[in-house]
């Protein structure tokens, strides 16, 4: 069975230069473990193909049940030089929530 992340978690994104970061938050420990297993670095990199052009990093932050993703080359050079409508990458968080993950191994 598959579910879209938007049904399981919430997220916020921010910008620093050309680097966007997205924190993905689970409501409980079980969901957190699921996110750690399913929302892998490779899947996030593939998910953002065509938007993010640099490295992707993932950090586990279990004390607040979060995964933190750092997306390099994600903002068309950075908010102040970007031609995009969403120059600050504020919507990259909700774009991540479009990802579908499997609920069972």
């Amino acid at each position, binding site marked *: 069975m598959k579910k879209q992340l938007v049904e399981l978690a919430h997220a*916020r994104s921010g910008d620093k230069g050309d680097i966007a970061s997205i924190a993905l938050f689970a409501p409980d420990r079980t969901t957190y473990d699921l996110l750690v297993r399913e929302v892998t670095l490779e899947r996030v990199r593939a998910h953002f193909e065509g938007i993010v052009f640099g490295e992707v990093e993932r950090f586990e932050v279990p004390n607040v049940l979060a995964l933190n993703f750092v997306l390099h080359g994600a903002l068309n050079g950075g908010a102040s030089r970007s031609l995009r409508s969403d120059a600050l990458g504020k919507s990259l968080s909700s774009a991540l929530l479009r990802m579908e993950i499997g609920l069972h191994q």
Partner: protein
Amino acid sequence: MKSIRIAGGLGFYGDSWRPVKASIERGNVQYVSSDHLAELTLAILQKDRQRDPNLGYTRDFAPMLLDLLPIAIPQGVKFILNAGGLNPMAAREALLNALRKFGIKLKVGVVLGDSVLERLDELQETGVSLAHMDTGAGIATVRDSLLFASAYLGARPLVEALDAGADIVLTGRVADAALFLAPMMHELGWRWDDWDKLAQGIVVGHLLECSGQATGGNFGGDWRSIPDLAHIGYPIAEVWENGDAVISKAPGTGGRVNFDTLREQLLYEVHDPQHYLTPDVDVDMTTVQLEEIAPDEVRVSGATGRPAPEMLKIVAGYEDGVMGQAMLGYAWPDALAKAQSAAQIIQQQMVEVGLKTEEVVVEYMGLDSIHGPLADLTHAKNLNEVYLRIAVRCADKKEAAKLGRLFPPLALSGPPFIGGAGGMIEPRGLLGIWPTLAPRSVIEEYVRVSVEES
């Protein structure tokens, strides 16, 4: 155990200070720390300073203070603001003049030395490469188009100003959270190598530095559950000598302080959570505990710190072309097909008039302008309406303006058209951001603090 209460001020140049008023009136705070500088704010201020050498600071700060001081002064509330921008001295002059005009007697401190634009040659001579922090590229390519270069300072000079009796401290670029750490260092007797306490102070500052984003604004969770955003309260922190803190907001304000709103802010614009680097301490956020203790009250504890980094971050900005953009709207039926046809016509004409672009972005607003290739196209063929937006990067304003002129004729001579969305938009200068590093000693050598009474 001694504690102090600090109110979060503005989160950027242009933010509202009405919630700050509520924090002073009903939040029992002794300090307001206010962040006026986003990464690109300095570029706006540079343009101001080019027009008038007495500008270059965020001009909202003096009206804000004049509005807040009548309630702040009787309670002894002090202000720490990075509103000095690129010209803290001019900001202080403007403030002192305003205070004198109203007969208000206060001590105003100023922190100087963050701007290094005039010292870049000297930095390079001492062996600082100024290479791009993320890409490693050399600075030579952008050196001549730099508009500003400012180092992120820590809390020390701000504390020096408070220790010298300043009621208001004006700075240029400092680490945002340092605006909050400063009153803690001034009041709570922490040492500069109490790394865990400094880390707690930075975490609290980080939670407060984006105003309403800690209290339910911009909330990515169930945003409908946040009450009364029209009267949102900004965050308030009470911080004790042992480093523990409670985040709350003024009674009677809207918004929400809970585990969810605070954890979203905790990781906001953080890269490696185990090494959140600031000029004063290297913070590990993975040991932080957030605990709801009452409605709209969350205890923050457990942050751990490691010694402050040897290098300070500098962010420079350089001119990087001009953006021209224009929009046109189309209606059902075939809204998207019409917009796509218009895009094709425009792009053809761009070639024919010889418009020289470095980059072109075509977006269909209402369909994919936000999520790009991730947008759900299920209803693309049956949209009620859609707006075509084309943006170009050009070498100068004159070139960029050519794009806009191609749009109006489509009103009568293109696919059936609706009009409306702003049409031609004035070209706007673009700014590249150049983050780099320099040893703290060569920066701090030039940092100066002075305090003057109105």
